[in-house]
C-alpha cells in the first residue's frame, strides 16, 4: 500500500512489551487516518464501559496518509482515547516534527495500553522500544521535560510529554510536543498520566513510496503558492488572536463566564494591540508554509515567549473577566508549561470565581483557597493549585462539570460545558449554527470539529436554503475528512473544491481510485462511528444540549437582543438528527450503520 506502512504498533506498558499488527487497507479506505482512524481503533480497542483512567483505555497516536508527503500543513497527528472529561470519545490534534517521527518508525498508529507501576519515559525507534525510568523527570514542566530528553537522547528524537497537570491526572491535561504545541482538548494528558508515562520520544526515518510522485511534486508547489494567498492572510499576519477585537465588536466574545455583563474594555488584549505593543515573532510547524504561530515575548519575564492563540487569550482573559495583558500572557504560558488545556482551565476558574461572588462555594472549600490580592492574582493561584492538585486545586482539577454537580445549589447552571467539555470562545446566543454544533458534537463543546461558525459569519445568501441541521452535518463531515487526511484547518479556504482536490491528492498518494463523493462519505462514516462509540458508552439525548444560562439569560445591549430558546435549540437538534438520518432520539438506525459499512 502506498502512503501507509500498513502497521500499528501496540505497546503494553504493564508488561513492558510490544507487538506489531497489520493495518488492513479496507480500514484506511473507510477511515483514512488521523482522527478517523483513531475513532476506529478506539471503538475496537477500548472495551465497552472502560473507565478513562483504567489501564484498558487505549491512548492512540494516529498519523495519516499525508504525513511525510511534504504537502503544506500535513505534519499532523491525532491523539485519541476515551475522555476523562466526557466519558465519550476524546480526540485532539497536534502538529510538527513529532508526526514525521511517529510515522518514521514505520507505524501508521501507536496504541498504548496498560499502566505502569512506576513513571516511565518511552524511547521508540526503528530498533525497538526502551522503557526507561522517568522518576528524575517528575514535576518538570513540558519544556523542561522536552529539553531534558533532548540532552539524554539527542536532538533526533521528538518527544510527546505531559507536565505536572498530566502527572496529577488533572482531567483537562494536555500532551505537549515540539516546543509547546499541545494536543489540548479532552484530557488525553490525564490518560497518559494514568498510565504513568511522562514522555514518549520517537526517532524514525522509514521511507514511504507514493503512487504518483510526479503529480504530488506539482501539487506541493501549487499548494505552497496558494497557501500564501488571501485565504490565509489572517493566520499569517496576526494569527488567530485577530479574532478577539472582531468578536468583541460583533458581540460574540463571551465574557465573565458567559454573563457578558462586563464593563471592561478588552482593547488592550486585542491581537492588533498586542502586535503593536509587544514583541511578536512568527513560527511554523514542520512542512508548513503558513506560519500562523505567534510567539509573544512576555513582559517582565526575560526572554520567555508564549505561543498565543485566540482561545487561550479568550479563556484566560475576557472569560474570567481579566483584561490585564501580562496576566493573560503569563497564565497562558503557565498552562502550556504545566500541560493544561487553556479553555477548560480558564472556564473552570471562571465558573469558580462567579460562584464565589454568588456565595455558592462551601465554606470548607473556601478554607482551601490561598490568600490573593485581586482577580488577576486569584487566577494565577487557582491555575497553580489546579496543576499541582493542591488545596482547592485538587477539587477544580476535576473540571467545572463534575465539581458543580458535587456542590449542587444551582452552580450547575453556571458551569459552561457540554458533555463535560468546557465551551470555547464563540457566543451561542448570537451564533445559532455554532450553538447547534456545540450541543451535538461528539466530543463536547467543541469548535474544531464542525467550524459551524463559518455559516454564522457568512452572508445569508452564501448559505442558500440549507437547514441549520444540514449545515452542521456538512461542517462536521468536512472537518472529519480534514482531521483524518490530516490538513490543518487554516488551509481549508485554499482549496477551490476541497473534496475534488483532496481525493485527487489522496489517490496520488495511495494509488486508490476514490472519487470526491466517496471521500465525503468517509467523513459521514467517521462521524457516525464517533457517535456510535458515545452511544455504546452511555450517551443519552439530554446530553445534546447547552448550559441553562444560554436559554435563560439573553444578551442585550439596549437595541439588539440576542437569545436562543430551549425549544429553538430542540428544533435545530431535530433538523440535525433528520439530516443525519438518525432516529428522533438521536440514535443511529441499524440500516444507517449498515449502509456506511460500520459493524458494531
Amino acid at each position: 500500500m502506498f502512503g501507509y506502512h500498513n502497521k500499528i504498533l501496540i505497546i503494553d506498558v504493564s508488561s513492558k512489551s510490544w507487538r506489531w499488527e497489520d493495518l488492513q487497507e479496507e480500514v484506511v479506505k473507510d477511515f483514512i487516518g488521523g482522527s478517523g482512524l483513531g475513532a476506529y481503533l478506539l471503538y475496537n480497542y477500548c472495551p465497552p464501559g472502560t473507565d478513562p483512567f483504567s489501564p484498558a483505555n487505549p491512548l492512540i497516536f494516529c498519523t495519516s496518509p499525508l504525513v511525510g508527503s511534504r504537502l503544506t500543513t500535513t505534519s499532523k497527528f491525532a491523539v485519541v482515547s476515551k475522555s476523562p472529561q466526557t466519558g465519550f470519545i476524546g480526540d485532539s490534534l497536534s502538529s510538527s516534527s513529532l508526526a514525521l517521527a511517529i510515522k518514521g518508525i514505520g507505524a501508521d498508529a501507536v496504541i498504548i495500553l496498560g499502566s505502569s507501576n512506576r513513571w516511565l519515559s518511552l524511547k521508540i525507534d526503528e530498533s525497538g522500544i526502551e522503557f526507561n525510568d522517568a522518576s528524575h523527570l517528575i514535576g518538570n514542566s513540558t519544556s523542561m521535560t522536552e529539553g531534558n530528553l533532548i540532552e539524554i537522547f539527542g536532538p533526533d528524537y521528538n518527544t510527546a510529554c505531559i507536565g505536572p497537570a498530566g502527572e496529577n491526572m488533572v482531567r483537562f491535561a494536555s500532551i505537549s510536543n515540539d516546543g509547546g504545541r499541545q494536543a489540548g482538548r479532552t484530557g488525553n494528558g490525564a490518560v497518559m498520566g494514568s498510565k504513568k508515562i511522562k514522555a514518549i520520544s520517537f526517532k524514525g526515518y522509514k521511507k514511504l513510496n507514493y503512487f504518483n510522485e510526479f503529480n504530488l511534486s506539482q501539487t506541493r508547489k501549487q499548494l505552497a503558492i496558494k497557501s500564501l494567498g488571501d485565504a490565509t492572510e489572517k493566520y499569517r499576519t496576526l494569527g488567530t488572536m485577530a479574532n478577539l477585537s472582531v468578536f468583541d465588536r460583533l458581540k460574540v466574545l463571551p465574557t465573565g463566564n458567559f454573563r457578558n455583563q462586563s464593563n471592561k474594555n478588552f482593547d488592550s488584549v486585542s491581537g492588533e494591540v498586542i502586535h503593536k505593543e509587544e514583541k511578536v515573532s512568527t513560527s511554523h510547524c514542520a512542512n508548513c508554509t503558513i506560519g500562523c504561530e505567534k510567539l509573544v515575548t512576555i513582559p517582565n519575564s526575560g526572554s520567555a515567549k508564549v505561543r498565543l492563540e485566540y482561545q487561550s487569550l479568550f479563556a484566560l482573559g475576557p472569560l474570567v473577566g481579566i483584561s490585564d495583558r501580562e496576566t493573560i500572557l503569563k497564565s497562558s504560558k503557565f498552562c502550556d508549561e504545566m500541560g493544561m488545556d487553556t479553555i477548560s482551565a480558564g472556564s473552570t476558574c471562571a465558573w469558580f470565581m462567579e460562584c464565589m461572588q454568588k456565595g455558592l462555594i462551601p465554606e470548607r472549600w473556601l478554607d482551601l483557597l490561598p490568600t490573593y490580592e485581586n482577580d488577576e492574582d486569584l487566577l494565577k493561584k487557582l491555575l497553580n493549585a489546579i496543576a499541582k492538585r493542591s488545596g482547592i486545586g485538587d477539587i477544580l482539577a476535576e473540571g467545572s462539570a463534575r465539581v458543580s454537580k458535587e456542590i449542587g445549589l444551582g452552580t450547575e447552571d453556571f458551569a459552561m460545558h457540554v458533555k463535560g467539555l468546557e465551551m470555547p470562545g464563540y457566543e451561542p446566543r448570537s451564533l445559532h449554527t455554532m450553538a447547534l454544533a456545540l450541543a451535538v458534537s461528539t466530543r463536547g463543546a467543541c469548535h474544531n470539529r464542525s467550524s459551524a461558525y463559518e455559516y454564522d459569519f457568512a452572508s445569508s445568501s452564501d448559505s442558500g436554503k440549507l437547514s441549520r441541521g444540514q449545515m452542521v452535518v456538512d461542517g462536521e463531515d468536512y472537518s472529519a475528512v480534514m482531521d483524518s487526511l490530516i490538513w490543518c484547518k487554516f488551509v481549508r479556504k485554499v482549496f477551490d473544491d476541497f473534496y475534488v482536490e483532496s481525493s485527487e491528492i489522496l489517490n496520488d498518494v495511495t494509488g486508490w481510485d476514490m472519487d470526491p463523493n466517496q471521500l465525503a462519505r468517509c467523513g459521514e462514516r467517521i462521524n457516525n462511528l464517533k457517535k456510535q462509540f458515545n452511544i455504546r458508552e452511555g450517551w443519552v439525548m439530554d446530553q445534546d444540549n447547552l448550559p441553562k444560562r444560554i436559554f435563560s439569560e439573553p444578551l442585550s445591549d439596549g437595541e439588539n437582543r440576542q437569545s436562543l430558546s430551549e425549544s429553538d435549540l430542540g428544533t435545530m437538534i431535530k433538523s440535525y438528527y433528520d439530516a443525519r438520518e438518525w432516529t428522533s432520539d438521536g440514535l443511529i438506525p441499524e440500516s444507517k450503520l449498515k449502509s456506511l459499512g460500520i459493524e458494531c
Partner: protein
Amino acid sequence: MAINLTVELYGNSRIITGQKLVQLKFADSKVGVVEVIQELALLFPALDGKVLDTGHKGLLSSYVFNLNGVGFQDPAKLKLRNGDSLLILPSQAGG
C-alpha cells in the same frame, strides 16, 4: 444630502493604516461600497493589494464587510445611510 460614515478597521488593515476608525464624508447620499473603497485607497495607498483589490472595486477575499456590527451581507446589496459604521473584518473566522 451628504452622509457621514465611519469605517472600522480590523486585523492587518488596522496594522497597515495605524487607524482603528476612519471618518468619511460623501456629498452624494447614493454612496456604495465602491465609493468607500476608492476613498480608502486615496487615504491609505498601502492598503492597495493587501486589503483592497487593485481595481478598487472591492475587498480582497481575505476581508469582508459588515454593517454596524450586525449582519453580514452581500456588498452589492449594502445600503449605506448617514451615521452607519462599515466594518472591514478578516474573512477567516477560525481559531
